[in-house]
């Protein structure tokens, strides 16, 4: 998405864009919340977790982080529900379930 000045994308006119719609603010893709793409969500049985971090390494979205208890958990604002973490987890911590809505 194009550079966000004080205006949101929906408020920007063509004059507000940089040349070639270049984005000059690094990392602004984090404002694009991809979690609403999800049709399945990961659920966790943290008793089985051996803290190997394989889920974090394999997550294509880069949205898995260690929480305060030291367990690895997806940030649901960004998790697209692809299920790769559940597939790769060696101890079966993660189970994908259908999103209700």
């Amino acid at each position, binding site marked *: *998405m194009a550079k966000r000045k004080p205006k949101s*994308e929906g408020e920007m006119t*063509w004059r507000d*864009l940089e040349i*070639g*719609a270049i984005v000059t603010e690094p990392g602004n893709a984090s404002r694009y919340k991809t979690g609403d793409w999800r049709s399945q969500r990961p659920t966790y049985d943290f008793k089985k977790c051996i803290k190997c971090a394989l889920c974090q390494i394999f997550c294509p979205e880069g949205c898995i982080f260690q929480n305060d208890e030291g367990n690895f958990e997806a940030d649901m604002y960004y998790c697209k529900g692809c299920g790769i973490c559940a597939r790769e987890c060696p101890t079966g911590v993660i189970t994908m379930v259908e999103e209700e809505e």
Partner: protein
Amino acid sequence: MADRVGIEVSVAIGDAVKQANVDVIAAYPITPQTHIVEHLAELVANGEVDAAYIPVESEHSAMSACLGSAAVGARTFTATAGQGLELMHEVLYVASSMRFPVVMTVANRALSSPLSVWGDHSDVMAVRDTGWIQIFTENGQEVVDHIFCAFRIAEDNKVLLPVMIHLDGFHLSHVIEPITFPDQSKVDKFLPDNKYPLPLHPDKPVTMGDFAPPIIYPEAKWAQEVNLRASKEIILKCWQEFGEIFGHHYSPVERYHSEKAKVLLLTMGSFSETAMTAIDKMRGEGRDVGLVRLRLWRPFPFEELRRAVEDAETLIVLDRALSFGGPGGPVCSEVKAALYGQAKKPKVVSFVSGIGGRDISPGDFEEIINKGITISEKGSPNEFEIFGVRE
């Protein structure tokens, strides 16, 4: 002092690109453009040009490499023709949309099939709407001059668009002509360093060619369109300054005995010079005919064209490409569109000829003009006339 030498036009283009102090050339050889990049490869290999030469595996890759080069602010050149231009097609849009000032010479060539290496304008017409500035040239000197003008226009921070310089394959690319090369000091003064405003650099990261959902894509495209139209002003200023310094004058629509002529012929590219010979002969016989040549193809010079033809009764447009199943020659259909809403306008007759490298002689031009006059008086059931094809 400026050098005037007899030289093949393709080789002269390479020498002019050297004078323009190019940084990167990424190209794939294709007839009839090969001599341009072959000569540049030699200049780079011999250390005569301080540039990187990227020999790529296709024209698609050539243009892609040009994007990367332009993205870091390097002065970037390539050349192609015919099928090569078509293979570049999708990347051409990316170059203009990302606003990269790449300069490319196109040695215009017919498209397959049947295979033809010879010249016409069907390759150009297929890339008409890719958002590039497009300039037609008629002789070697004009091509050389436009190497300097094209970099200057493309890299102007008010423009930042790629520029195509069109020259007819073989009819222009392979002929030997007397060409004047300007003094290097004058070129350096006319063509300042490329200062691309937002280059890729680790100190100031940017994202180029980003993702645009419906909420912002139309704004991005409209910005591009406004910019291309506005580039005409910079093009005109560039040509004016070039004329003052180097003595060669250019304009979007050029005239030859066209003032007050009742009948006008409109051409584009090197065949215009043959048409001049026909116009001279006919005027010598007392005929009221003149010639109008379209130099700037994009952005289309609507006002200049309207002014150039408004006093004529008949305008005969020669196209060197077919628009299959369409309204006639592509140039003619644009000319008609430009004139449609005008109160005072000539009758327009569309001719297609000279495709696949077939010559149009001065005698042929005379015949085209005479037939055009008859059609404008009596009408024709055809959307356009094909000339010089055996029945």
